[in-house]
């Protein structure tokens, strides 16, 4: 059998398996808060959700391309691509959210010791351990390298004191990959004193406080460190050598962010909301003005989809797509902002209701969702590298403009 025939056979097997094993309830869009955060605190909302999780886990398809001996699926890249395509074709929900596999896992596989790999990779693949990211600090957001988390050496341990912020799901995570300050020498570049370390969230001295956003409760947390002891052997790579590894890790962030975004429900699309609310605007002049803005955004959304398709084709043809993909984070964030601004204008006060989370409210779910998504729309222009940072990156790396 040729490679092509093998892949075709694999596609058939995947289809049949998914058909038999992905419960129909798991082939609908994920509702708000309906994601499964892996790890020791895992919770399921429903039996189909649990079944889908366990079956994918047993199939070892959480990390399809990772080596079998470490708990991965051992698939080739081509096979993994087929699996991904079939999952999306059948509209299967993501069985879990797993920053271990999406973010730090590939880094441990590349830079970690054998012991670190054996300790962490299998538990990522089995979903036993969940991971969160300890990067940002109150004074180190866009300028991440300014981070200050104090790390004093005491015997075989670091003793950590400080504060991490914007850590998603810290309250549900078993482990954190964390950036700490291990060299404070003002004569050196601040990038040179940063170390990447893995730490157990059950350590004493760690406390977690969820952050309330403009839109209400969120999964972002602040994490306080009060004399937290971390073995020095948990360092990934070299001490003070964390920055280059972090830059690499951040490249995975874009992918993880878009997976997370895909998995969250964004409410009805602009066209369908506009079809319902535009006819309610009585004045023809105002209706026309709104309609023009709405069409502009519908076209922008289409343009982004076409660009995604173009990237897919270029990648398949073996072309370098880094130039084009640099626009996605910025374009998606800004389009989201514009979309919710125009929805606010279109729906007026009906988009300004506050969700009490109880029955019998004056506002319907679409309206409450619009208000909430509008308040969240800045988040996508700030988290994971703000729009301004994206523009800097394009200017310097893509356009080659001088410093």
């Amino acid at each position: 059998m040729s490679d092509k025939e093998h892949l075709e056979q694999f596609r058939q097997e995947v289809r049949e398996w998914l058909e038999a094993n992905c419960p129909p309830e798991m082939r609908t869009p994920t509702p708000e808060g309906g994601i499964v955060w892996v790890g020791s605190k895992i919770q399921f909302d429903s039996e189909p959700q649990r079944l889908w999780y366990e079956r994918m886990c047993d199939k070892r398809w959480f990390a399809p391309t990772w080596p079998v001996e470490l708990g991965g699926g051992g698939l080739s890249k081509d096979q993994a691509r087929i699996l991904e395509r079939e999952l999306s074709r059948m509209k299967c929900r993501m069985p879990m959210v797993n920053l271990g596999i999406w973010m730090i896992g590939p880094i441990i596989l590349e830079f970690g010791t054998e012991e670190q790999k054996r300790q962490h990779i299998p538990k990522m693949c089995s979903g036993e351990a969940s991971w969160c990211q300890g990067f940002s600090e109150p004074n180190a957001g866009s300028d991440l390298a300014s981070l200050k988390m104090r790390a004093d050496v005491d015997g075989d341990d670091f003793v950590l004191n400080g504060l991490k912020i914007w850590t998603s799901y810290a309250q549900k995570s078993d482990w954190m990959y964390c950036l700490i300050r291990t060299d404070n020498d003002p004569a050196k570049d601040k990038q040179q004193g940063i170390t990447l370390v893995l730490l157990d969230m059950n350590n004493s001295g760690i406390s977690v406080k969820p952050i309330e956003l403009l839109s209400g409760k969120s999964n972002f947390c602040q994490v306080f460190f009060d004399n937290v002891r971390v073995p020095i052997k948990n360092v990934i790579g070299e001490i003070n050598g964390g920055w280059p590894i972090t830059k690499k890790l951040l490249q995975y962030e874009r992918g993880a962010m878009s997976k997370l975004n895909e998995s969250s429900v964004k409410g009805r699309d602009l066209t369908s909301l506009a079809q319902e609310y535009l006819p309610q605007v009585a004045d023809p002049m105002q209706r026309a003005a709104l309609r023009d803005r709405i069409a502009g955004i519908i076209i922008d959304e289409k343009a982004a989809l076409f660009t995604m398709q173009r990237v897919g084709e270029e990648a398949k043809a073996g072309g370098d797509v880094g130039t084009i993909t640099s626009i996605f984070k910025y374009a998606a964030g800004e389009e989201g902002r514009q979309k919710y601004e125009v929805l606010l204008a279109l729906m007026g006060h009906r988009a300004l209701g506050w969700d009490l989370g109880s029955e019998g409210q004056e506002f319907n779910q679409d309206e409450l969702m619009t208000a909430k998504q509008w308040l969240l729309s800045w988040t996508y222009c700030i988290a994971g590298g703000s729009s301004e940072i994206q523009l800097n990156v394009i200017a310097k790396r893509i356009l080659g403009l001088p410093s």
Partner: protein
Amino acid sequence: MALLFNEEQRLLQETAQDYFQNNFSTKTLRQMRENQDALCYVPELWQQMVEMGWTGILATEEEGGLGFGFKGVGAVLEPAGKTLAGSPFLGTVVLGGSAIQLGGNDAQRADWLAKIIGGEVRFALAVDETPRHDPNVCKTTATKNGGGYTLDGEKLFVMDGACADQLIVSATSEAGPTLFIVDAKAAGVTRHRLAMIDTRNAARIVFKNVQVSADAVLGQPGNGNEILEQVLDRGRIALCAEMLGIAQWLFDTTIDYLKQRVQFDVLIGSFQALQHRASRMFVQMQLARSTVLAALACVDENPAFLPYYASAAKAKMSEALELVSSEAVQMHGGIGVTDELDVGLYLKRGRVCVAAFGDISFHRDRVARISGL
């Protein structure tokens, strides 16, 4: 539907790129402007385009053409846009050729397609009667007259209208909107050349008591709008390809300038105020390019969605071109507002393209209507 060009189309694009770069320059364009050139294109250039077979890009192999598909049009017009090379290509091959292909009967196809491919005829589409593109306004009348029709009316801003040999004219007959093929030299046709900012061929055309035979009808009397709509959409998408070339030249030239121009002892490209604007242009260029590529592909592969794709492309491409051309002038500073710099020539052609066959609001309106709004 595949957005990227295939090997053949890519080769055609490279050939066109080299050809226009080596054979046309803004120096020629400036000379034509100086001399108030009657044609506003270089006849030798057009003749060579014919000889290279480009007039047969859209016609199928059975029709004697090359069958490149509509991406072939994009492959020629984007490079043409980059150099501002004008020619009767769009009017003749895209508009005339599509009108005959889509609406022509066997005799008309036999008559005209071979002549288009051979470069023996130049076509123009005479539709607009108002300063803003609006094909629904058609006061030109076609009155039944024995076996034929009498045409009366006036068409404005006819692209390639001053040089065309044959005109595709929209008129209202008793059966409804109808298209006619009219000889540009027929008795009663008066053409007034329009000098516009882009130094291209354009005309106002008056039809007074113009007699045409029943054979001149393209398609069925009364179904003119169905053909016209499809022809216009092809024209819009072709124009988008030219606009993409214009915008790309303006963008590249401006980014280069940011890397050369020194003020306050530093390169102005190091200023974040300009870097962010440059990056925004880049984002818009990428989005516009994808939309234009999708529209080019749509003509051949997904024609049921043509109106949507054509309007999305024309709106998005116009938006990007307006942005990039305005920023190009502004970022060049003082020299940007002088005639000496070529940026102004691209700006001027660009804005004529934006207005032609519907501007941003025209096409947003169309997308909204198709979206049920």
